[in-house]
């Protein structure tokens, strides 16, 4: 007869509909909170990771470079590798016009790991088959089509090859600049001459083996890689990686920042707290209502363990209904919210691939957290229930008629006083309700302050100085940047822009590239160390403070050098020296000196002392092919923003070319005098208000139809990005605030219903001694409003305290916030709360206090 306990559990479960409903809502809210946040968190992380992987061109755990055939073969026995691909580089095609196409031999594992799998058609099988992107095919003069024939040309081992290949499959290009074209191993077998290994003699990559891999475990991966390279006769510590080397893909395997972990932990604790306040109250109330029953169970011979089992069983059933519901709702809320989240991130990453799958991690994680919260919050109520002494079963007669209360009311105590004394009946519960409501107020207000503090103009002016900036798309790719002369803008686009109506303040801006390493600069800064970059082969020098300079052909720094019109220079933020832009430009045009740019802290005009290496008056010598051609004293210093370096927030190009500096700004005339083949890296201009839309449309059209290598940024886009930050904060914060608010209100509803049910008899007694229904309702309203007033007071005070401590510190730490205090969100929530608190008891009494007075008096008999 073991199942008797089950029968009892099931039937009392079925009998307590109201309790079940409230408990299900409570658990559901908790699991919605967890699911929404895990969905958004995991989705955003995965989306950004995937986007970064696509930009990098690999989703592997890492890759091996420069292997010999033997070393590649040995990968088979490396047990720390679960899967690995094959890449045999050949080289770039030589018969392309604007797109860079790398031609390699890949296997399908490698193709899959590096986003090169054909979306249309199939992988190459025959020796003359290839797969590449649509953009690559169009550049080669072929429409993307399976079966099309495409001519390719390349050089390997000093010999030119010209081949006709057949397209076996193709995919949509992920990059506007570079695509992979690949053939299968059949191609290698048919052309052994191309793949002859001569790397040790002439550094020709054709014939070497590369491999992207997936590790069996990423724990201790670096050690495993180092060990393997030692075994293979390589040196993992070698700075010059001409030979065998391996690198971990830091995008797939990012190092977790402690601040991120801390923030996650704080959010989880906050949610557990919210769930705890709610679920605890539901169960606490449910147990309190059934004291007599548990006493009866105990008298009849139920043990404490059996009581616990009985309640646990019901809690389990409630969870089984509520958690899946919560997971589902939370998942959809998360999925809908995610694009907003990702949108905010897209100000730094172009074209984020939004990616959210119903990942088991989300559901398992949220379920575990919810289950943990339930266990935590039901522990005490269940213990209380089990500890109810059997004697409670007999005490009912005294308990039901609260003599004291009646006496007080007959003595004429006010309704207010009566309501107040009711609050004191269960201090812990009152505290919990007030806490959960106050939490909602504080949270919403803090988010409101944060959203209000988003300084949109600061963000716009920091990231762009004109209405429009047109660049080569490489500039917007944070993995690449403007580094080569070929990235420069042609005159064609500039002329096209100039013919547009409303364009003014335009200036072409020139910049040096890695191809201009014959021009170098010497200046009074001491270097303590020089070396050669293992990946690029470019020499560099480091100052004592760790500032790095790339070195040109003659061993002097290349620097980042810009040439521009006066109108562009005047937009810069000149801080020291000749601050009159007009005078400065004149002096510079006369060859009297140069404007030195110094990196500033984001959103400020304060020159970052770490990069502030020269004084006004210091002399910079210009060298051409190793010969001094000019002397340029520093005339002034300007605080730089992203727009001065490259575009918006991206500064990858200058970093590749000059590394940390110097940043030199010259008039166009002087710049073109120094550099033989000056390249224009961007064209920046303002547009009359009325014509803004026209120019947007013009640029979109131009990029799509005339020159797909171009891209642009606009002040409008910058403003939208900044607005998105604010909207996103409001949206996500508001969402969480609303869930917290719902939790608080549910708590309040639960308490009011319980009070009414538990005191039906008492109410009847009061009514029998002359209290009208109206008075009764008013008493309940007072009671409910007391909670709300308590919550509002606590919430408002905490909101103010939190605003000037945590919120101020947090927003102060991020450059695009300007702390702006407000209590409006809190006040709005308070008003809403007071209204809800006043209406709830009226509805609840209507529903639950039905039936005649006589019936109610009989309830306990």
């Amino acid at each position: 007869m073991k199942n008797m306990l089950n029968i009892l559990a099931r039937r009392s479960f079925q009998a307590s509909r109201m309790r079940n409903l409230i408990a299900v809502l409570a658990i559901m809210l908790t699991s919605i909170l967890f699911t929404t946040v895990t969905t958004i968190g995991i989705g955003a992380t995965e989306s950004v990771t995937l986007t970064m992987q696509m930009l990098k061109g690999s989703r592997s755990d890492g890759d091996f470079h420069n292997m010999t055939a033997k070393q590649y073969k040995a990968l088979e026995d490396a047990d720390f590798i679960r899967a690995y691909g094959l890449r045999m580089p050949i080289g770039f095609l030589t018969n392309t016009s604007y797109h860079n196409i790398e031609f390699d031999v890949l296997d399908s594992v490698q193709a899959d790991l590096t986003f090169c799998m054909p979306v249309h058609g199939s992988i190459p099988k025959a020796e003359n088959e290839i797969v590449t992107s649509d953009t690559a095919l169009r550049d080669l003069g072929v429409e993307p089509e399976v079966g099309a024939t495409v001519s390719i040309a390349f050089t390997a081992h000093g010999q030119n090859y010209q081949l006709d290949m057949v397209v076996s499959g193709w995919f949509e290009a992920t990059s506007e600049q570079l695509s992979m074209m690949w053939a299968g191993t059949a191609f290698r077998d048919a052309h052994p001459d191309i793949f002859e290994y001569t790397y040790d003699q002439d550094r020709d990559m054709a014939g070497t083996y590369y491999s992207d891999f997936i590790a069996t475990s990423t724990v201790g991966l670096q050690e495993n890689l180092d060990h393997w390279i030692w075994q293979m006769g390589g040196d993992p510590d070698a700075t010059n990686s001409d030979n065998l080397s391996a690198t971990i893909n830091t995008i797939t395997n990012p190092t977790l920042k402690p601040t991120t972990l801390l923030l996650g932990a704080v959010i989880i604790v906050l949610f557990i707290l919210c769930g705890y306040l709610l679920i605890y109250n539901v169960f606490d109330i449910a147990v309190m209502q059934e004291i007599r029953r548990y006493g009866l169970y105990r008298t009849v011979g139920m043990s404490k363990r059996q009581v616990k089992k009985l309640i646990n069983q019901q809690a389990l059933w409630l969870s089984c209904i509520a958690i899946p519901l919560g997971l589902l709702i939370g998942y959809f809320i998360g999925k809908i919210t995610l694009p907003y989240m990702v949108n905010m991130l897209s100000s730094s990453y172009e074209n984020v691939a939004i990616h959210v799958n119903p990942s088991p991690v989300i559901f398992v994680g949220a379920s575990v957290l919810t289950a943990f919260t339930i266990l935590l919050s039901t522990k005490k109520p269940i213990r209380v229930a089990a500890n109810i002494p059997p004697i409670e079963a007999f005490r009912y007669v005294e308990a039901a008629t609260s003599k004291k209360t009646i006496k007080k009311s007959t003595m004429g105590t006010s309704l207010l006083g009566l309501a107040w004394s009711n609050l004191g009946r269960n201090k812990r519960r009152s505290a919990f309700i007030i806490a959960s409501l106050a939490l909602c107020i504080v949270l919403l207000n803090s988010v409101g302050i944060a959203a209000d503090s988003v300084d949109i103009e600061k963000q716009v002016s920091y990231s762009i100085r004109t209405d429009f900036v047109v660049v080569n798309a490489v500039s917007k790719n944070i993995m690449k940047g403007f580094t080569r002369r070929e990235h420069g803008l042609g005159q064609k686009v500039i002329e096209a822009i100039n013919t547009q109506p409303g364009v003014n303040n335009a200036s072409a801006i020139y910049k040096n590239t890695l191809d201009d390493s014959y021009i170098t600069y010497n200046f009074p800064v001491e270097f303590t160390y020089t070396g050669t970059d293992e990946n690029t082969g470019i020499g560099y020098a480091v100052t004592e403070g760790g500032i790095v300079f790339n070195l040109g052909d003659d061993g002097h720094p290349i620097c980042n050098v810009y040439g521009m019109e006066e109108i562009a220079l005047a937009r810069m933020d000149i801080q020291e020296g000749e601050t009159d832009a007009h005078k400065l430009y004149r002096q510079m045009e006369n060859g009297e000196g140069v404007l030195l740019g110094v990196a500033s802290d984001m959103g400020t005009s304060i020159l970052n002392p770490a990069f502030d290496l020269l004084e006004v008056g210091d002399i910079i010598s210009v060298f051409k092919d190793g010969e001094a051609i000019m002397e340029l004293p520093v005339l002034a210093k300007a605080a730089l923003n992203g727009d001065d370096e490259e575009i918006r927030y991206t500064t990858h190009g200058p970093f590749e070319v000059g590394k940390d500096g110097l940043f030199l700004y010259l008039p166009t005339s002087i710049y073109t005098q120094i550099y033989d083949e000056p390249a224009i890296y961007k064209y920046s201009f303002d547009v009359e208000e009325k014509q803004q839309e026209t120019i947007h449309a013009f640029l979109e059209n131009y990029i799509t139809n005339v020159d797909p290598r171009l891209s642009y940024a606009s002040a409008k886009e910058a403003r939208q990005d900044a607005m998105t930050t604010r909207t996103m904060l409001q949206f996500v914060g508001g969402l969480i605030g609303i869930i917290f608010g719902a939790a608080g209100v549910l708590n309040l509803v639960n308490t009011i219903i319980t009070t009414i049910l538990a005191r039906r008899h008492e109410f009847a007694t009061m009514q029998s001694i002359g209290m009208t229904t109206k008075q009764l309702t008013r008493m309940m309203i007072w009671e409910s409003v007391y909670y709300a007033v308590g919550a509002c007071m606590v919430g408002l005070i905490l909101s103010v305290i939190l605003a000037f401590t945590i919120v101020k510190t947090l927003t102060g730490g991020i450059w695009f916030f300007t702390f702006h205090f407000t209590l409006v969100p809190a006040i709005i929530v308070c008003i809403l709360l007071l209204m809800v608190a006043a209406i709830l008891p009226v509805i609840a009494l209507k529903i639950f206090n039905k039936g005649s007075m006589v019936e109610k008096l009989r309830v306990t008999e």
Partner: protein
Amino acid sequence: MMDIVTIQHLKKFFKDGPQIVKALDGIDLSIEKGKFTVIVGASGSGKTTLLNMIAGLYQPTEGNVIVDGVDLSQMKEEQLTVFRRRKIGFVFQGYNLIPELTIKENIIFPLALDDTRPDTAYFSNLVHLLGLCHYLDAYPYMLSGGAQQCAAIARALITKPSIVLADEPTGSFDIKTTQNVAGLLKMTAATFHQTLVVITHNLDLAQLADRIVRLQDGKIV
């Protein structure tokens, strides 16, 4: 004859705010096995408290309660629960059936908690005697007060307890029902050789007793 209950110098005080209520104030009492004892006394004289002490629901302030040779104060909570389940049948004022369970389920509930099945012959005998045959699948609310009390008696007896304790089992009944229930209690107790201790104000019931214990202000008089 053997004493199944021995009470020595028993005191039980309650705190009621600042006051101390001496519910039981020095009780010495022995109850013989198989006998029918009635406890009478004015309201507040300590009757219920005494009965609860025998059931082990309260710890004594002073003195001992020995039931079936075991001192209750020496037992732990869970031991007491099992002791109650197996040795004591409880019938209390108001019928206190579990509303979600049928009459049959209510009756066998104490056994089910112990993971044992009822002795079918005993069960049908009991049900027959108490006139519950037709109500076994009904829920408590469908029954009259008298029938519900009969079910409560059946539940108290199903474990074949050595002692049956009843606190005003006929409290709210009319005369006829009272007589029936009282008669039934005595009869079943006699049939199954049980010791019966009953609190009552009802003189008819008291007259059936082997012995009457009279309480006043927590003392036997």
